[in-house]
């Protein structure tokens, strides 16, 4: 397979032709914040708006998960414009996130925490108003625990549930009401979910987690 050479943050890296910039950077140890990207997904949703980078010659920042690498491309993962965009997207996500790290099963392995750490963002909402929904934890499955209040709507579980699971997960409603749920909003335990736990492995936050009794390794 053909490879191309490009520069990311001053480092020369190689990548497979046609590969998306996000994966090229991550494979080379250069972190770009991301939540919704799925390796292997044909059409990136580019929904989380966290993976912005600047590319020389481009008028404005672009999402790294949708941008294919090109020979000689010069990329910067940081710039005042990028940092602002990413910070705002991050704060928007946090503004309706049930932030409770101390009691969260994903404490210390959470992607939101990682983004905050890597970008030196405070893990709290400063400029925006907090708008939390009062959503109930779904404890009905013997294997998976679902806390919709922590969900960042990245869509990774929906994707993997189709690929490897039973296809019971999907998005419903829109806007502020949007939610990952099942057909008719029935609890997971009655949804036909077979408890394969693939969604738990891909969830970047503490929304889908394994039940204590069940051993799903993340």
């Amino acid at each position, binding site marked *: 397979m053909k490879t191309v050479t490009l520069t990311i943050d001053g480092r020369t890296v190689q990548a497979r032709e046609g590969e998306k910039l996000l994966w090229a950077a991550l494979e080379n140890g250069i972190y770009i914040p991301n939540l919704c990207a799925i390796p292997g997904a044909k059409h990136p949703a580019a929904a989380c708006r966290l993976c912005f980078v600047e590319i020389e010659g481009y008028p404005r920042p672009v999402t790294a998960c949708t941008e294919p690498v090109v020979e000689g491309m010069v990329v910067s993962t940081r710039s005042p414009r990028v940092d602002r965009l990413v910070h705002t997207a991050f704060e928007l996500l946090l503004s309706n996130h049930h932030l409770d790290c101390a009691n969260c099963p994903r404490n210390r392995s959470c992607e939101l925490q990682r983004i905050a750490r890597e970008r030196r963002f405070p893990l709290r909402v400063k400029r925006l108003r907090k708008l939390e929904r009062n959503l109930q934890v779904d404890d009905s499955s013997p294997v998976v625990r679902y806390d919709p209040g922590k969900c960042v709507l990245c869509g990774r579980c929906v994707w993997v549930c189709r690929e490897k699971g039973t296809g019971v*997960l*999907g998005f419903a*409603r829109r806007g502020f009401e949007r939610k990952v749920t099942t057909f008719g909003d029935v609890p997971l335990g009655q949804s036909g979910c077979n408890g394969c736990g693939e969604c738990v492995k891909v969830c970047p936050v503490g929304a889908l987690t394994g039940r204590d009794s069940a051993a799903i390794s993340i």
Partner: protein
Amino acid sequence: MHLTEGEKRVALEQTGNILESYSRERGNLIPILQQVQEKLGYVPLVAMEEVARHLGIPPVDVYSVATFYNQFRLIPPGKHQIKVCMGTACHMKGGNIILDCWKRRLGIDVNEVTPDREFSLERVACVGCCTMAPVTVIDEEVHGKVTPTRVDGLLFSFGVKIPKGQQKEGEAVEQQ
């Protein structure tokens, strides 16, 4: 919200008839749902399951689309349909307060129906009577300059009595 066996049977029959004239392409999803809605006045879960089977997609995908667009209602309309205007003028004049009154008095949320099937509640965009804001439309009849006491009055005219000082919040009916 539980449908009666009769309602389910009718829903399945009608959906079956509609599906006969559509090929199994995913692109037909919205037209089919629109037909179901037109025939039944709503799109019940049993119909969605049939549609999903016909198109060979997970039922949750049909649910996803049906809950995305306001034009689809998931439950049968009540005997009286209460539509609260949330257009700009009505919003400015406190339409959301009026909506809250209806919710509290009926004990249901938007897009739900009372357990006795008497009333269903919806929010609508500008109904074109902005000078009368805030507006509530009940069964095609427009009521302007609605106040919380007017909400009680309207309910009274339908024979619903609200005892003085009673603010009890009812349980929202769950969709089923």
